[in-house]
């Protein structure tokens, strides 16, 4: 058991280090996230000027939503990126056979590597845009350390749900061979249903309630609401984190099922 933990920690550290080597790419990403932050922030100001309190947020909260989501995008691989393309490529080329013979679980291996990547991108691409946003606009960042702690737990769960969905995409390559089409569809869905395009609380009526029950809400909307204090009471916070945990559990389980179906399908050609 302890050896297992050490193994996955080493894999995660490898994921972290791998992305840490791309200095210019990280700087370019920070620049992009900051530019988009400004653009979206101005449109939100126009919108909240017209309709104060829209979606249950005041203007400062709405702007916090903008800048914190820009900080979480790369870590959660919400607009693409992440490991799924690599997994698909390994399936296509047949390298996956090597992975299957490793004395480690395929899903846990990729989860560890992806969390390592996310940890780097949270630090590397998350902090600067948020600081710039806080300097340029009046944000509603909480002062309570407990709230930040809850937020971090919620982010970890969000990253796990995001991973679980992308693992399913990666495995789809066993059947589709080429993943670019399904990846793009998945990105579309993620951008829209995670709350990145517009907070899900702004979506109208029953549709709004429906989208908040989907797994994509667990990737961005829920951590944002935890940070903004919409789940202030202990029970409410537990409910929000529980919602994420249930989706993480269900989707990881679906990944396991699909994985066993996929590995039965593998035909290793001798070489």
């Amino acid at each position, binding site marked *: 058991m302890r050896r297992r933990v050490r193994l996955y920690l080493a894999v995660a550290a490898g994921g972290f280090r791998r992305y840490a080597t*791309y200095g*210019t*790419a990280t*700087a*370019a*990403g920070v*620049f*992009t996230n900051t*530019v*988009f932050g*400004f*653009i*979206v922030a*101005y*449109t939100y*100001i*126009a*919108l909240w000027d*017209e*309709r104060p309190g*829209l979606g249950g947020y005041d203007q400062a909260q709405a702007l916090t939503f903008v800048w914190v989501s820009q900080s979480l995008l790369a870590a959660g691989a919400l607009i693409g990126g992440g490991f799924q393309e690599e997994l698909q490529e390994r399936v296509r080329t047949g390298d996956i056979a090597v992975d299957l013979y490793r004395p480690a679980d395929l899903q846990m291996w990729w989860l560890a590597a992806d969390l390592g990547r996310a940890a780097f991108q949270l630090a590397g691409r998350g902090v600067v845009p948020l600081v710039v946003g806080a300097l340029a606009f009046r944000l509603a960042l909480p002062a309570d350390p407990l709230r930040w702690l809850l937020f971090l737990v919620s982010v970890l769960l969000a990253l796990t749900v995001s991973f679980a969905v992308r693992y399913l995409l990666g495995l789809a390559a066993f059947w*589709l*061979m*080429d*993943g*670019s*089409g*399904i990846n*793009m*569809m998945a*990105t*579309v869905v993620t*951008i*829209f249903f995670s709350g990145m*395009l*517009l907070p899900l609380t*702004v*979506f*109208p009526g029953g549709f709004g309630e429906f989208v908040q029950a989907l797994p994509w809400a667990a990737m961005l909307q829920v951590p944002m609401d935890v940070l903004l204090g919409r789940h202030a009471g202990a029970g409410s916070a537990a409910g929000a984190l529980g919602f994420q945990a249930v989706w993480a559990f269900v989707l990881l389980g679906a990944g396991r099922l699909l994985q066993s179906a996929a590995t039965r399908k593998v035909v290793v050609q001798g070489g």
Partner: protein
Amino acid sequence: MAEAVLEREFAAVEVPRRGRAREGLRGYGLIVAMWIRSTMTYRTSFALSVVGNAAITLLDFVAVCIMFSHVDELGGFTLPEIALLYGSCSASLGLADLLLGNTDRIGVRIRDGSLDTMLVRPVPVLAQVAADRFALRRLGRVGQGVGVLAWAVWALGPQVEWTAGKVLLVPVMVLAGAGIFGAVMVAGAAFQFLAGDAAEVQNSFTYGGCAMLQYPPTVFAKDLLRGVTFIVPLAFVNWLPALYVLGRPDPLGLPGWAAYLSPLVAFAVFLPASLAWRAGVRSYRSTGS
């Protein structure tokens, strides 16, 4: 396999005596044809990605529509007016992205050294880089942008005083806008010779620029407007022509005829972009691997 076909095609090309531009276009066409053939190998995936490409941008517009389910105006603009801005910049960016978008892959080519192969082929490097992995699926965005634009023109129909100039300005705006975005893409590719893998910087000017241009200029701070009018002239992609069509004044006070300058601006920004590109290619040092 595909590369081999390409090499054979090029072997048939005699030493170029025709114009360099024509040679470039011919090479571009050959590479594009090759990539289209290779894309068609996975037809399901291709169909999904065309739909996905249209949907990715359409959802942007759905978000705008959701905003308008709560408000009647944004920055003083109505939904059809914003649809005019949205559709035109989306179509422009889609066109530029289709024709030149893959220039951002040059960072990868520089890093892995595969740019070397391009330098020895008898086709201008820019044509090769632009056609590299040509993605026909990007027609999805173009189609979606043109669709929204057509709806906007229809919905605005009665309230705009359509003159011949205004009617002409709509397609000109889309094409000139594509030219301006294209120049930004070439400049961004040139920047990658200097900065290595910085494709995302280019994205913030193109995709980020389009995200901004889909909202009315009244939403943004004046300094930002000055920046995108006089430094990176994105305002000429659609803001100035669209404001003129709608009969609204420019927040920076530019005269109405500035709306017709877009093609000229597109031409003007291609000059520094192509100079930067030349400087970039000249400064290129192979990784040697």
